[in-house]
């Protein structure tokens, strides 16, 4: 039996075989010739999660638009499929042509969250690709990674041949070009890496030596050969409108997490919330023009047939021409019965007018993220949202007929006290009170549902809170309990994230190279899909740490001094360390920083020469 027949037999035994069949509308199927470069784009999670990710769609179509390149998708097989593949002794296959991943020239992972790291190891293992860079040679594929977690990819430094830092629209093309040149020149593996290490935004970990102090902190990170930069700077697309624009999307057969068109309206965020890594990583803010967006939306509607379109950005209501954009979009969506959805709205600039516009199509629940329960703590984290804003917005929403509202908060934030935790319950209660203060004839329904969700604060690299310790697991659990006890009405339901996962997230977010051994050990013990509660095995992780003689608490629970060399010290996101220190200090003074549009705070991102810094 050949492997395709065996693969088919596996499909008959698993749940949701549509995860593995490919052939969706707009998927690209190319015949690979000898001269072409093949790129396996791997998302280290299951199909329906990976297919909901915009970045992958952009880069997939961009690479496939090149005649000399074939890009195919790869997702982590769900646990039932993994078992079947292993039993049948089948390697991990690509979705389009069902080709073994190990036969591709470049295997690229996107790192969206730390808890998918074990899936990367597991996928490489399934693919039969040597796990460590040093064990690869000859015809082995090059393994690369990009995405937000690549900025501190140190826990994967032994595994990934090269990281791509920043936005991939330009740099990926440069890498493909370099690969072709290298292949024609028939040079050694290391020469390819040396060649691309000179491309801005490419980081080859093996070209850097990390030296540690006796107390396990980092002493220095230095290049170990000529021609590679001391600091690796991220890449951005200076002008979004002139970059590659995605106007088609694969339309999956099965229901995926975000089963809709995604229209990216801008990158970055003007706000500067001090806990938010994305807010710093994607600086400076750059917008698409209304004309370009409307044109793209039309093409996307025609090419997908989707019945919903969602605007995508870190903060929708901060788009400068939002009203104009929505008016223009409604002109093309209403007749075609397409719903327009606006996620990531802020409570401070939410208006009745805006809400009514979106309502013309569909009324769904509202979600807001005050993040902290008291004004003091919101000032600490620079979430410039006032209680009045939330209550005013809630009133508008309730009078407009909404009766479901979700509120997102974080617990364990720096300087948090019991009063701040109880403040979450109090704030939710005030929202409930607003609802019942509205006459019955105006509000819709008798019942209100306020869902309060808390996640546990995870200090992230490249934020002002990168030096902060995380709360211990038992402290977080106590705070969750305290909050629960202070919720006094049935109108409020409370759910929270597992603190054990948040702890490991902190460890890997701020981890260094020594964690590679732990990741590999954990995968051997069966860790994968750690982001899925039913598969997260905390005990196995603790065993892996202990086997490798590494104390995870060192990474998560230590207050780091501003003078310490950080494991990601050699990575430059364009925001200066001095700015992060200043923001860290302002947090402790409970002083807020205005948005980029109100007043430039000189973070350094202007160095990229574009975006909001030059508006």
């Amino acid at each position, binding site marked *: 039996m050949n492997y395709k027949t065996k693969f088919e037999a596996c499909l008959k035994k698993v749940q949701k075989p549509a995860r593995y*069949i490919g052939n969706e509308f707009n998927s690209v199927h190319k015949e690979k010739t000898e001269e072409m470069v093949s790129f396996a784009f791997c998302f280290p999670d299951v199909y329906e999660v990976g297919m909901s990710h915009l970045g992958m769609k952009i880069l997939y179509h961009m690479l496939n638009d090149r005649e000399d390149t074939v890009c195919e998708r790869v997702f982590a097989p769900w646990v039932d499929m993994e078992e079947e593949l292993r039993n049948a002794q089948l390697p991990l296959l690509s979705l389009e042509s069902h080709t073994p991943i190990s036969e591709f020239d470049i295997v690229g992972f996107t790192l969206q969250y730390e808890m998918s790291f074990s899936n990367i190891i597991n996928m490489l293992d399934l693919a039969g690709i040597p796990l460590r860079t040093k064990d690869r040679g000859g015809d082995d594929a090059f393994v690369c990674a990009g995405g937000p977690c690549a900025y501190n990819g140190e826990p994967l430094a032994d595994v990934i041949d090269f990281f791509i830092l920043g936005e991939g629209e330009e740099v990926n093309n440069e890498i493909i070009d370099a690969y072709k040149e290298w292949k024609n020149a028939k040079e050694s593996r290391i020469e390819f890496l040396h060649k691309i290490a000179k491309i801005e935004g490419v980081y080859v970990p093996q070209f850097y030596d990390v030296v540690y102090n006796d107390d396990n902190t980092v002493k220095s990170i230095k290049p170990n050969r000529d021609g590679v930069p001391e600091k690796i700077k991220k890449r951005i697309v200076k002008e979004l409108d002139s970059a590659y624009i995605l106007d088609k999307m694969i339309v999956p057969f099965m229901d995926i997490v975000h089963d809709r068109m995604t229209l990216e309206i801008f990158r970055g965020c003007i706000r500067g919330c001090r806990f938010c890594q994305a807010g710093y990583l994607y600086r400076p803010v750059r917008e698409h023009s209304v004309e370009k967006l409307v044109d793209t939306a039309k093409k996307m509607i025609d090419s997908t047939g989707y019945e919903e379109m969602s605007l995508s950005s870190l903060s929708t209501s901060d788009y400068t021409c939002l009203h104009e954009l929505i008016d223009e979009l409604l002109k093309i969506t209403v007749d075609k019965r397409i719903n327009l959805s606006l996620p990531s709205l802020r409570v401070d600039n939410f208006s009745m007018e805006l809400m009514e516009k979106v309502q013309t199509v569909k009324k769904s629940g509202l979600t807001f993220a005050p993040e902290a329960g008291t004004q003091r703590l919101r000032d600490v984290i620079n979430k410039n949202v006032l209680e009045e804003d939330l209550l005013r917005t809630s009133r508008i929403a309730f009078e407009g007929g909404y009766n479901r509202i979700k509120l997102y908060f974080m617990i364990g934030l720096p300087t948090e006290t019991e009063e701040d935790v109880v403040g979450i319950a109090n704030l939710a209660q005030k929202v409930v009170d607003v609802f019942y203060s509205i006459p019955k004839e105006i509000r819709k329904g008798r019942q209100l549902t306020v869902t309060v969700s808390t996640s546990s604060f995870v200090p992230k690299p490249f934020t002002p809170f990168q030096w902060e310790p995380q709360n211990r697991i038992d402290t977080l659990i106590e705070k969750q309990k305290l909050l629960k006890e202070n919720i006094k009405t049935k109108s409020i339901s409370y759910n929270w994230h597992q603190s054990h996962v948040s702890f490991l997230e902190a460890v890997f977010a701020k981890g260094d190279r020594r964690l590679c051994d732990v990741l590999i050990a954990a995968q051997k013990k069966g860790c994968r899909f750690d982001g899925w509660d039913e598969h997260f095995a905390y005990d196995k992780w603790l065993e892996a740490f202990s086997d490798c003689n590494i104390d995870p608490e060192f990474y998560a629970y230590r207050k780091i001094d501003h003078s310490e060399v950080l494991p990601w010290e050699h990575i430059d996101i364009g925001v200066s360390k001095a700015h992060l220190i200043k923001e860290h200090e302002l947090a402790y003074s409970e002083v807020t920083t205005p948005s980029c549009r109100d007043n430039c705070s000189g973070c350094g991102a202007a160095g990229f020469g574009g975006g909001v810094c030059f508006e």
Partner: protein
Amino acid sequence: MSKMRLKFSKLGMGKYISHLDLLRTFTRAIHRAELPVRYSQGFNPHQLITFSLPLALGTTSETEFVDIDFEDGTDKIEVVKKLNMCLPPDIKILEASVPVVKAKDIVSAEYIFDITADSEVNDERVKSFFAEENIPAVKKTKRGEKEINLKEFIYSVDEIAVNGEKVTIKAVISAGGENNIKPGIVAEKLCEFIGNARPENVEIHRTTIFYSDGKKIKNFC
């Protein structure tokens, strides 16, 4: 109102598109093709699309039927042409017609079972399976599991061809609203009976759907 019945095939990897996913696939293809489909009334309007007989997951077919309500005067040829441009490669519209027969009159369907056994198969063994008086099986329904005699659901066996480890069987089994049976159960029980074959190595293909007009069994159209 002009209801159109489209005959289509679902081949290749398309067999892993579930019934619900197929509905979504059609909805979006109709959108892409910009065909004048009619919508249901009510709070959540949806396109008026009805499949005549669901196809079990993992089964290919050369004769599937779907009824779609279009605005009056919609051209059949146009619908076939445009939809085929907008459907994924494994689904193909074969023809369009005005529905005559009701889906509730469907009584059976013909399937071809292609088995690749682990080793050579004894054709007497295969024949004796279909000659059994009683083939106990369990039918899963929404309300739970039910013990049945599978034999009563197998209406005819038109062909048994055994060639080494390859076995091909053509059979008509019960289908439709009242006595629907998944062809996979037949494959499973047969594999169990002959011993050296596994259900995951059976390819099942639907060739024809039959209905009864009260007197005779005829091809559904």
